[in-house]
Each structure stands twice: as C-alpha cells, then as structure tokens.
C-alpha cells in the first residue's frame, strides 16, 4: 500500500502543537513507516511537491503570509485539520482582536520601559509581511474538515486522530482526549 502523504505548518501559533506531535516519542518511528511527510517544518520541503492526504494546521492567521500558506494547504490537501485552539479559535494571539492593532504596536515599539526608539518608527519594511487587522481562525479563511481542540491537543489525541484517518477508520476519540484549555 502506498504511504499516505502528510503536510504540516505553523501559522500564528507557538509551535506547541508541533511539539505535542513530537511527544508521541518513539511512536514517531512508527509514524514514519505509515506516512511520508511532504511540506512541513520537520523537513526541507518548502512548497508542495504532490497532493497530500492530510494537512495539519497549527495557529490562526495574523498576517498576509499566513493566509497565503493556508490557502495553499487547502489547494493541496484532501483533509485539512485545525490542530489546537489557535487554529480552531484564534487562541491566545486572538486576544489582540479587542484592541486596535496600532495600540499593540505602540506598546511594543514606543512605550515599553526598555524601548530605545529615537526616530519613533514602527517596523514597516517591505521585507516583513503586513499584519491583518485581527487574528482569524482557520475556518474563517478556508474550509476545514476537522478540529482538534486543546492547547495543545495531547500527543495521544494527535496520534489517535491521525491513525484513524490514515487507516480509514472513523475518528471517534474518547471523551478524555477531547479537551479545551
């Protein structure tokens, strides 16, 4: 049987969800037998090289680059999963949604007690991507097929969900594995 292809990305997240995936520990060696990783921070594949069965998304969208990457994932993956509270609901970064973006920038680059900024300039170089007015959960940008809650979802949650999907079983997670943080 051909190995399933899996892609992963971190958008506006903290990488904790990817770390949780690593927390499957030695099962990672089993996972590598089950799947081939395509585009993912865990290897060097920068753009999709083939169609993927599953795409795992960590983090919501806080800048234009996040949106581009997320749309690209939708285009190349059969099943897209929002992994963790950030992808599912925006998470902690979405706490900035109630505050005008300018105030967040001013606090970081003008007002902080250790800021040294004689020109009063806020970072704005064309080399850095534009921030969105607020942080968006992934399903407000593209269609998402599954949501795995948790901050992060536990290694067991990720393992059970992936194995079910990749072996064509229904994703029926026991109650203890579905946790919001």
């Amino acid at each position, binding site marked *: 049987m051909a190995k399933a292809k899996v892609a992963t990305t971190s958008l506006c997240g903290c990488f904790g969800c990817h770390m949780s995936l690593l927390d499957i*520990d030695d099962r990672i060696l089993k996972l590598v037998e089950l799947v081939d990783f395509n585009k993912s921070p865990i290897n060097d594949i920068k753009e999709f090289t083939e169609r993927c069965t599953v795409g795992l998304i960590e983090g919501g969208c806080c800048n234009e680059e996040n949106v581009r990457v997320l749309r690209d994932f939708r285009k190349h993956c059969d099943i897209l999963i929002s992994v963790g509270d950030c992808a599912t609901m925006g998470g902690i970064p979405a706490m900035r949604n109630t505050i005008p973006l300018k105030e967040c920038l001013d606090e970081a680059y003008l007002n902080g007690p250790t800021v*040294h900024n004689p020109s009063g300039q806020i970072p704005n170089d064309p080399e850095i991507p534009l921030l969105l007015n607020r942080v968006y959960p992934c399903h407000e940008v593209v269609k998402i097929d599954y949501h795995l809650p948790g901050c992060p979802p536990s290694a067991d949650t990720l393992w059970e969900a992936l194995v079910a999907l990749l072996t064509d079983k229904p994703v029926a997670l026991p109650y203890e594995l579905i946790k919001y943080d």
Partner: protein
Amino acid sequence: MASTKQKRVIIEPVTRVEGHGKVSILLDEKNTVTQARLHIVEFRGFERFVQGRPFWEVPVLVQRLCGICPVSHHLAAAKAMDWIVGGEKLTPTAEKMRRLMHYGQTFQSHALHFFHLASPDLLFGFDADVAIRNVIGVAAKYPDLAVQGVMMRKYGQEIIKATAGKKIHGTGAIPGGINKNLSIAERDVFLKDIDQMLTWCRGALKVAVDYTTANLATAAPFGSFDSNHLSIVRKDGSMDLYDGNLRAIDAQGKKILDQVAPQDYYKVIAEEVRPWSYMKFPFIKSIGPKDGWYRVGPLARINTCDFIDTPEAEAARKEFMKLTDGKPNNITMAYHWARMIELLHSGEKIRDLLNDKDLQGTDLVTKGDRRDEGIAIVEAPRGTLFHHYRVNKDDQVVMANLIVSTTSNNEPMNRAVQKVAQDHISGKPEITEGLLNHIEVAIRAYDPCLSCATHALGRMPLEVILVDSTGTVIDRKRK
C-alpha cells in the same frame, strides 16, 4: 549609493524564530555582498493584550508565546508574580519543584536541539546530500544516537509533566509557590532512568567536543566575532539557570556589569527598534546601541560564570575554557559544546534534586506584603529572559515588558548571517544549496526559539530568490 544592478537574495522562511524569519542579502553586479539581514516577520502584541488580565492568570497565559520553552515563560512570569504577592522567598519545596521543572525543560530542549537539529550538520557536514542531512538520515546511519535523542527529550518532558501537570503549557507554578509536590512514586520512576540519562549526556558531550576539536580550523572562524556576553550568575559567581543577578563581560572577559539585581534590569538594558524587523535589538545602556549588544545562551553563560556547581559539568567547563586559554570563547560554533555541558549540568541537577526529600514537602505557597510591580529573570535554554509587570489594585496587569532570549541574540545572529554571507557567498557565481545551508548552520548555532520545531526533525526550509532591481527573478533555489 545602491547600484541599479543590485540584486536581492531572499531566504524565506528561514525559521520560526519567535515567529517567522527570513534572510535578505543584497549583492552588487560582481556578487559581492553589500548587506545581509535576518528579519523577524511575526508580531503578536503580548505586551498590550495581557493588560487588563488578572495577574495570577499571567504565568499560564504568557507561556503561549512559545511552545518550545513554555516552562521558561511560565517560571519567569510566576517569579515576577511572587513579588506581587510578596512571596518571593519561596518555601524549599516550591523552589526545588520549580527548579526541577526548569532543569527538566533545559534537558529536553538541549537534547532536542542537539540530536534532532544540529547533529545532521555536525555528523554529515554542511554540504552533505540533502536527502540524508536530517534526523531521518541520522536515524538510518546512527540509530542509537537518534533513539537517545528521542528518549532524552521524553525524559525531560515527563519531568515537566510531573512538576507542571502537563508536558506543554502546564500550570504548576503559581504566584508565591507551586501547586503540587513530587510523590515518591513519581520520583522513583525518574530515579530508575537517571543513570542512563547521565551516560547519554556524557556521550552527547563527547560528540560535540570531538566535532569542535577535529574541525577547529573551519569551525573557529565560522560566523564568529568578538562580542559581549550576558547572563545571570549566582551571588558566588556560579552558573545558575533559575535565579541570580546579571553579569555582563566584554570579549576579553572584563566585567561590564556584575551582580545587578533583576529589579534594576531596565537601568542597564535597553532595546533599539529598527524598521526592518519586528524583533528589537537589546544593548547595554552604558555602552550604547552601537557596541553594547551582547550574546546570551549556553556560550554566554559558560563565559560569564566563574564555575559550575556540579562536578562533571565543572570539569567539562574547565576543558572548554582551555580552548581559549581561559579567555571568553567567541566562537559561534562552540555554542554546541557549551550546550552539551549544560545538558550534563541539567542531568546532574535533576539527579541531585530527585534525591532531595524537600520535594515531598507539603508547604507549597508563601505570601507577604502586596506590591504593584514584579520583575524576574530566568536563564531559558536559549538565554536570559526578562519579565516585568505592573498591576493595579484590582489585580489587573497594567504594564508588561518582555525581553525574550532570542531577542538578545538578534544582533549576534545578524552578525553571524553577515559574516557567513561575506565569507561563503560573496563573489560566488552561483548560490548552491550547500551554501544556503551554511547560513542556516550559523543561525542554528543560536538555537533560536520557536524555530526549534522547524528544526525539530532536521532543517529549516529555505528559499533563495535572486531578483534584479526591476524585480525580475534571475535565479531561484530551493531546498
């Protein structure tokens, strides 16, 4: 003035370095590098949006900055909040539980970085075939080493779970203390494996030492430069990752700052804003923004401390200092060696703590006179981490200032990128994949935060696009 023939080389994304990073390189028509920069392209605004939140929520909230070293943020915030509740003199059980959590995290983080990320470069070479230069390649050629990496990380993560309640984003530290102790049953599970862990630590240290000494001619100048170094040290000058006062030295070892209390950090450190990066550029105020920048992390800590208070790591430190005749070591690639000394140190500390009966104590929380300001510093795996909060009488945070470890290494990482671009890319007719990896290797030596997951199973995705001044793509290389 920039020539119209100027070319722009973009490496994107470099990594998640407190968010996304990318490198831009400007070349003239002879491919001479005129500028090379590491840009940090993500902004989240934590300082502003924690305002209004109750202070006791902050230790669990701010760790969501980073899923790779959440314990550091969890503990730095909790230590700051100790001051708010007047509980900064913790009970022995609380302080030792927090220390165990912290050493567990340093242990897992250093193991992860070394085995999963750095070892492919060191074992196979910077220019090795892309197909094998990753952790899967390591697993195929050195299966024992790969399994050790996975199991050491697991051990550290389990310690975090036993002290914080959860492997990632736990809740163990609370203002004035901790919410659980370590049961005998939990302790015994860890004691069973600690000797194995220490053996593996010694092996990992040997890999790092052997690599550096065998390749000294190329490793010593690679992305290297003289710099100041900063960390906290204990009152007696010992390395201490959890608590202490600030010390900074210059490239020759002369003290610039010593025993500066965390509460005075803002009198000695400031952060410059530059328009081309969301990450600020910290510097020592008395020297100024131009020359006051400094390095943090394992290399800086080994350089600034007078000694390490665990015997095996101290012996390893002495060996390390011999390389530079007792002067500060300014070799960027020596970060790996320094990191492995700290891995061994964390292992020794974990062993000592596990044998300490205080961990089974039941006096977990203290309190004293309420304050409205709390400042704390810890040494995160990647370097000195500052947390500073002000709280109003309704217990709401009204001000937050965070200087995270990777921020202090912003200027050094930029210097390393410039140096490698100058030494290895400038004047070359073609940019090969191997050359790109040289830039990664230099950034990676610093183990920049959030990139660790990118690093986790090997390497950072890199793309370089050569664009002429009209925006036409001349060349595109991807790995």
